[in-house]
């Protein structure tokens, strides 16, 4: 099944393989009841990617170009306006300057971000800007970021978002269901949201900074995947702690567990906290080490980020010219 929705063409550099969409499964507490995550050991592994694997020079340039195509370029601010969102979409379409594209020898090879991610009221201006680009349009939904509005309203919000042209819906889970151990309620809620999404893909935001333990994060990941999540995502960007490598490793291992159990691939999106190339490369290394190359395609991996792109541009500029660039030399998103 393709991620293509209502006339948008597939981003050229996205993986051509079709991905069987995770249909979810019956709720089965046995699959996660005994899960236990050891924090110290998880942190130790998470700390090792940078020292065990090296990505330099031309490899680094290629990885960073790839990183651009994995970005959900995001604006989620109270003062967002249509104009601000149009500017963001323009940056998503043309993340690199002509000059830099030439220096890198990209010629007419298109490079764009995977998607743009906005609040509900910004869907329409974004959809207009992105028409015909193949760049996906993601909307945060379901009472983002706290998810504490009435469930019927949250489901309705998804309907509106899909109707307005969003083809990816980033929902927030009810943290209280996790903290109260009410896994069945979490499952039912996410399943209902998945149904509301229809053809649009659903990313379930766990808000890991509010779930207390890595074990809770692992269990919540499993429940969301059982309920049919296409992606599991770390954070809203609004929690005090957003994406971290140990949290991400825990979720990625859950994805691997779910794959072993069902044969379905689920995507992963770290959000908040990935602001520079060094961190982005650590995340990409983790994906390659833990799940393999397949998970470095936009249908299975995204960065939820706003300032990462700027840093990537500066690094690529440095690769092309040999000197460090300044932010003002790259267009604002």
């Amino acid at each position, binding site marked *: 099944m393709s991620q293509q929705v209502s006339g948008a063409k597939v981003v050229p550099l996205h993986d051509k393989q079709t991905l069987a969409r995770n249909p979810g499964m019956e709720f089965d507490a046995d699959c996660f009841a005994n899960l236990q995550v*050891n924090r110290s050991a998880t942190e130790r592994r998470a700390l090792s990617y940078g*020292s065990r694997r*090296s990505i330099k020079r031309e490899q680094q340039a290629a990885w960073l170009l790839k990183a651009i195509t994995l970005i959900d370029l995001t604006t989620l601010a109270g003062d967002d306006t249509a104009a601000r969102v149009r500017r963001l979409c323009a940056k998503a379409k043309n993340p690199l300057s002509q000059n830099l594209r030439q220096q890198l020898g990209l010629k007419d090879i298109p490079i764009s971000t995977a998607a743009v991610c906005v609040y509900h009221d910004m869907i329409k201006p974004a959809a207009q800007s992105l028409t015909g680009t193949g760049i996906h349009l993601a909307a945060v939904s379901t009472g983002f970021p706290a998810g504490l509005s009435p469930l019927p309203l949250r489901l309705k919000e998804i309907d509106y978002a899909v109707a307005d042209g969003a083809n990816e819906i980033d929902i927030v889970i009810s943290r209280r269901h996790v903290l109260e151990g009410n896994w069945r309620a979490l499952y039912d809620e996410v399943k209902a949201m998945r149904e509301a999404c229809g053809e649009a893909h659903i990313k379930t935001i766990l808000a890991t900074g509010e779930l207390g*333990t890595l074990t809770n994060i692992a269990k919540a990941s499993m429940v969301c995947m059982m309920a049919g999540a296409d992606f599991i995502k770390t954070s809203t960007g609004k929690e005090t702690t957003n994406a971290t490598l140990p949290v991400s490793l825990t979720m990625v291992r859950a994805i691997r567990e779910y794959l072993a159990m069902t044969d379905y691939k689920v995507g992963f999106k770290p959000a908040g906290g990935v602001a520079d190339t060094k961190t982005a490369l650590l995340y990409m290394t983790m994906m390659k080490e833990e799940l393999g190359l397949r998970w470095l395609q936009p249908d299975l991996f995204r960065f939820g980020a706003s300032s990462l792109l700027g840093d990537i541009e500066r690094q690529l500029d440095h690769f092309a010219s040999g000197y460090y660039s300044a932010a003002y030399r790259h267009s604002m998103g």
Partner: protein
Amino acid sequence: MILMDNFNNLEYSSALESSSEAQAWLAEQNTHFGHFINGSWLHNETADIMPVTNPANTEQLATIELADASVVDAAVAAAQKALPAWQALGGMGRAKVLYALARSLQKHTRLFAVLETLDNGKPIRESRDADVPLAVRHFYHHAGWAKIQAEEFADYQPVGVVGQIIPWNFPLLMLAWKIAPALAMGNTLVIKPAEQTPLTAMLFAHLCVQAGVPAGVVNIINGAGQAGALLAAHEGVNKVAFTGSTPVGKAIRQATAGQGKKLSLELGGKSAFIVFEDADLDAAVEGIVDAIWFNQGEVCCAGSRLLVQASVEQRLIAKLKERMQNLSYGNPLDKSVDIGALVSQEQYQRVDSMVTSGLETGGELYQTCEANISANYYPPSLITDVETSHPLVQEEIFGPVLVAISFRTQSEAVSLANNSRFGLACSIWSENINRALDVAPKIKSGVVWINTHNQFDAACGFGGVKESGFGREGGREGLYEYLKPAGLKAQKPLSKIKERSARSLSDNIDHTLKFYIGGKQVRPDSGHSQPVYSAKGEVVDWVGSGNRKDIRNAVSAAVKASAWSGSAGHTRAQILYFMAENLALRESEFITKLQTMTGHSAKQAKAEFTASIERLFTYAAWADKYDGNVHNVPYRGVTMALPEAKGILAIVTPEQSPLVSSISLIAAALAMGNRIVLVANERFANLILDLVQVLETSDMPAGVVNIVTGSRQDLATQLAGHAEVDGIWCWADAETIKQVEYTSAENLKTTWCHDDNDRDWLSDKQGEGKEFLRQAIEVKNIWTPYGD
């Protein structure tokens, strides 16, 4: 287009660390090394030469001269000469030197790391992130110990000249582990690096000059096994510290027998990696990578025996096999490499032939990459479908080879883990703290890691039990290896008795003194008895002549009494107090006997008797107060240094002050939870056997104390060779001590041997205290990282 190829493949970079600075340094040294003695380089034109090669490409890096006896003599002489001034420098002075060494090392970390990788073949990532930083930390940490030595070790003095022999698997780190504590405590030393990997030691010699280490304090000689043997056996060396293989460790134990040297041995292992069904399996898989594929598995404490609970065996093995596909190996200077080269062609052949011949016995081999013989790259290997009897499960491979077996229950896991001649380390993987902390004390090893493996720190002792050797390196416990008690005053030997007729001295009813074994009074297996004479030479009693069967029975009884070692300190204290109570009831009897046997005055005998009662009180007091430590290790977790009973202690009692010395030794050993097989000094055997009635009335559980009499030398030697005996305390003549130390190599039990007349037992300072308690225990370090 390359960029787009990379874009699609997302390969890692080959990031080769430059070796040019290291090569330049070698060139400055003319790629040739003699010996660093008395602060300068000693060369001998006619010396035998050996090449030093880079195992990853077999290129020659340098040559070394091999030390002969004259070189070893010169090095030991230099260390002896430097000793007084080094000790006179004081704690602050030595702290400054150690601090300077730490700082100097830190200034050249890259050069040390590259040189280490060139020489040893280990990945640069490991030499950079593990070997060098841990070595630096060791010098910092011990600079601190030097400063506070006077206060913290007031009752101790330095051993003197130390001979140290280190292996090739962690050349610089092992050098740091040896040198830092020795220097901190005021010793001077001669160290011999492995002939395969001498280069970082050579660079360190230059550092010593830079850092202001006085000439002769650190001497570094090059050479192979022969030079090591010369150093270990050298009469001028007061202590030998060896890290290496178990066979060589045994040879050193034998060679130094009777020389009065302190000895510490850090030897081989076949450490268990135990995964329970409630473990975080993904964490355990990464733990296995750290355990067996760190340093190509050339680690004495490598987790080379995977024990996995049957209920999760399939899942764990599947996850592990998947993980193995991601292990990269190749040029050790490449920062993206997980596994480098084995140290030498010889080592490669050893591992390869062990695995090949082992597989003939059965077992399934899983490897994810090809071997590269010319570069000594042995692929990471997993062997399944093997039983405990399989040679690859029993023997240390010292390569990147893991064997996996399954277990059903917790108690079976403990039995399997302990089913080994070795006892170095173990890791326990479980998210259940009740289980982990229950299992940790049951494992016979010096180190236990909970949910981690291969963690080390200067603040924490490292070392093993059983055939993994004895002694600790690091932490407070490690410093005692370089200290000896101060203030022992040797006593005049007892004058010989002129034996007279075999006439019975007593008009009382005949009193038969029997052995005490398993809580029962038993007759000697031989059916022979021997007379015990009074100071005047009259026969006072007849005691049994014990033989090896009596020793066997006594040890068997002690084995059965294992509950004592797990009993609470409070319980043991109660029994020691009770012993004091019951002994006190027999005051006049013992005082009379003491007078008869020693010829001492009533006053002297009374003093010895009173001291004996006090000793029982001392150790009853200590029984629940000799606590462990929580080490200050830089990680989020608790590292507990737990004092554990050695297990079964053989005690051979001295001639001096026979009652108080025997009571002192028995009480100290019992207080710490040991079971005892005691060989009574022949001359006073009757006096010791009189204690049986005290023991019998004091609620002492059967088998906790066993007493045999007879030929001291024969019985002591039997005990020294008995594999179920964990340690031997022996006060005797030189010949017996030599026999005991030599024979102890059989299972490498710990020995604590002294001349019969080495101290004044009536003095509290010499006759009791923490040194006795320390000798009665092994320190087990349990690492417990936490966090949820």
